[in-house]
């Protein structure tokens, strides 16, 4: 494999940063999204309030035995509480009035209907207390099926959610994102350093994460070892797997002079092999660690966090600081950066490059294993957890600048926060898509990443 320093000389033209279709989309979304979220939140608080005040509702809605059709709802906001004495008028779709009622002291109202069909619910805006306004129009059209008690949600704003509800959720997601980003960073430091020192884009790095988590799971659940020693053992396993990778595969391949693209495809093969072997051994299920259910979330004022998440953040920060100190202060750390910067120069100044690369692999394996355990704590242990994380690691590493250790850290943190915060705008189950979109946007705007050097990308 050629070293990055050699390749740097063969540069092509850089991509022009302007005129991309993705850019305006990425910038234009958040403000409009925020409004949507505020509205959603409102409906949510509304729905929750409704559930709290009418506990039997959920059952009644699904119960088909009741012959009569009913429309009901609750008017309340988080600041004002339930709103009393608001006139609610129900008409048919043609405009014939069915009934007009006022909300009771719990803010509830209910109207019996003559039969299934379409109805329009209108509330009198003048009856609302000061500061409370309608989020959307003052009427809603609902379709009532036969025998249903249909709840009607009418969005109200009390002015609090721009500073209150919305931003509290944002802070919560920010903290979640930092936790997730630190976790990605831990796994990605190895990926980035391996790229820096050997030029290999290691698609099998995700499997180091999975193997770490699965090893910890077996030691913890099958072996009955408490989680912390199990994690330490798993990190040893991770380091061993990393070393095995280097000694058994990549060092011989470098010696044979295998091309970088061939090596990349080999790493894909290794990734497939390991991923599906793990599935054969561990199975397709997802299961949690033992003795690590942290139950209740602690309240920290602006956000809540489970103890697990808290320790996860603390561990990641400490470990990443240790890595940084090691890279900055120790002899081996300096050697790593030197090899990553220019391998030939490092070799000619007496650094044992192969030893450094071996150390990078072991460190990368151990960190990936630790990342896997932390990921397993929050999302349970699964056979393809590493592969899914790998793509976010690539996003982070690319954002920070391929080949730089600190770049991986910064980039991963941003990706983690971005992925979690994006759920303010997009549904939770497509949040990874946002991260992957970010990756492509980065490639358009600044392919060398935040801390990367321009010469590497061409």
């Amino acid at each position, binding site marked *: 494999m050629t070293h990055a320093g050699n390749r740097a000389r063969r540069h092509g033209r850089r991509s022009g940063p302007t005129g991309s279709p993705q850019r305006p989309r990425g910038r234009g979304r958040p403000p409009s999204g925020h409004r949507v979220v505020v509205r959603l939140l409102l409906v949510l608080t509304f729905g929750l309030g409704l559930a709290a005040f009418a506990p039997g509702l959920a059952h009644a809605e699904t119960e088909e035995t009741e012959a009569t059709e009913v429309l009901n709802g609750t008017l309340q906001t988080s600041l004002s509480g339930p709103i009393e004495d608001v006139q609610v008028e129900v008409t048919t779709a043609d405009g014939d009035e069915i009934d007009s009622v006022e909300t009771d002291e719990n803010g509830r109202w209910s109207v019996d209907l003559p039969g299934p069909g379409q109805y329009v619910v209108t509330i009198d805006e003048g009856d609302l207390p000061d500061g409370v306004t309608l989020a959307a129009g003052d009427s809603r059209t609902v379709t009532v099926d036969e025998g249903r008690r249909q709840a009607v949600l009418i969005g109200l704003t009390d002015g609090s959610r721009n500073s209150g509800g919305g931003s509290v959720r944002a802070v919560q997601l920010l903290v979640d994102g930092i936790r997730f980003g630190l976790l990605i960073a831990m796994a990605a430091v190895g990926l980035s350093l391996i790229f820096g020192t050997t030029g290999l884009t290691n698609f099998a790095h995700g499997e180091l994460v999975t193997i770490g988590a699965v090893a910890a799971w077996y030691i913890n659940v099958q072996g009955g070892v408490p989680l912390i020693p199990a994690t330490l053992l798993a990190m040893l396993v991770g380091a061993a797997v990393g070393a095995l990778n280097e000694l058994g595969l990549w060092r011989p391949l470098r010696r044979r002079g295998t091309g970088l693209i061939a090596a990349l495809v080999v790493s894909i093969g290794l990734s497939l092999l390991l991923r*599906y072997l793990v599935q054969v051994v561990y199975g397709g299920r997802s299961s949690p660690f033992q003795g690590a259910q942290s139950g209740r979330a602690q309240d920290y004022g602006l956000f809540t966090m489970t103890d697990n998440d808290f320790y996860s953040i603390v561990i990641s920060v400490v470990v990443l600081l240790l890595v940084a100190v090691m890279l900055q202060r120790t002899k081996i750390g300096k050697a790593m950066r030197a090899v990553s910067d220019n391998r030939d120069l490092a070799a000619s100044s007496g650094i044992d490059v192969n030893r450094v690369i071996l150390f990078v692999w072991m460190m990368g394996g151990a960190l990936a294993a630790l990342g896997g355990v932390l990921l397993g704590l929050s999302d349970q242990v699964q056979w393809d957890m590493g592969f899914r994380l790998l793509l976010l690691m690539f996003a982070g590493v690319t954002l920070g600048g391929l080949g730089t250790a600190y770049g991986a850290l910064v980039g991963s943190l941003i990706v983690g926060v971005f992925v979690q915060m994006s759920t303010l705008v997009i549904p939770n189950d497509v949040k*990874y898509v946002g991260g992957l*979109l970010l990756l492509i946007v980065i490639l358009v705007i600044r392919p060398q990443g935040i801390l990367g050097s321009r010469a590497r990308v061409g």
Partner: protein
Amino acid sequence: MADLLNALAVAGKSALGFQAIFFALLAIGINVQFGYAGLLNFGQIAFAMLGGFGIAISVSKWGLPFWVGVLVGILAAVVLALLLGLPTLRLRADYLAIATIATAEGLRLLFRSVSATPVTNGTRGLSAFNGDFIALAPWNTSRRYSILGTSWSGGELWVALVGWILVILGSLLVFALMRSPWGRVLKSIREDEDAVRSLGKNVYVYKMQALVLGGVFGALGGMVYAVGTGSAIPDQYQNANTFLAYAALILGGAARVLGPVIGAMLLLFILQFADTGLRLLISNGVIPEDLLSSTDVAQIRFVLVGVGLMLLLIFRPQGIFGDRREVMLDAR
């Protein structure tokens, strides 16, 4: 012995069935991109998914005719290739690899998400869109035909026939293109991009054309697969399939017109034979159930592909037909 013959027959059927066509078309596309132009498209399965869902959504959601669906699928693949190529084709090869694999996974997650359910039916996917196509078969599609000890339904035969015609036409197209000046420029881009640029060729445009052409082959493959199974489910389009196609291509020989076709047939034969064989050995008790249960056998094919890819790349990167000098690629 009868078991062995049976396993051979089953494997032979899958080497000729629509799955082999699927991988052959995917691999032909990758051959244009990777074999001739040196582009690493690790998201070929995304093009296939767009092809398959192009038909499925057009027919069963929008009520369009089948052939309009085919056009929609191809168009979607072209658009995806342009979108992917715009930012990445000027960068080093592994950036395209990362971007494409991320896109493939992202698109699959998007297609199976709850918010996409109105269009794609989420994880359950779409079905009943291939009726128009099956009805074109010149023979009775409802009865089964027995060929060399394997049983094919009329529909399967029809899909396989049309599919292999597609494969042959595709191979002819690639053959013609690679003999043309366009193909020679493409191959020289693979060898030395700077040299081509200094001759005044617009490398970026050539690469983009190769990416689009390969993507269209991917979409056609996805269509054959969707029509063959009669359903389009996002989770059928797992990322690992891209690498099955890579394995097929490298096994047959990259940068050879027939490499991907032979490779796909051979790969499917090996995988299906291993599959049937392992199941047989497990049910006969030769392999103890604790070591490997029959539900795990489906996973074994990917393990085999992984090992195969590694061994091929290390020991015989040119595959069966390839030229070693043509495939000793290095990252630019």
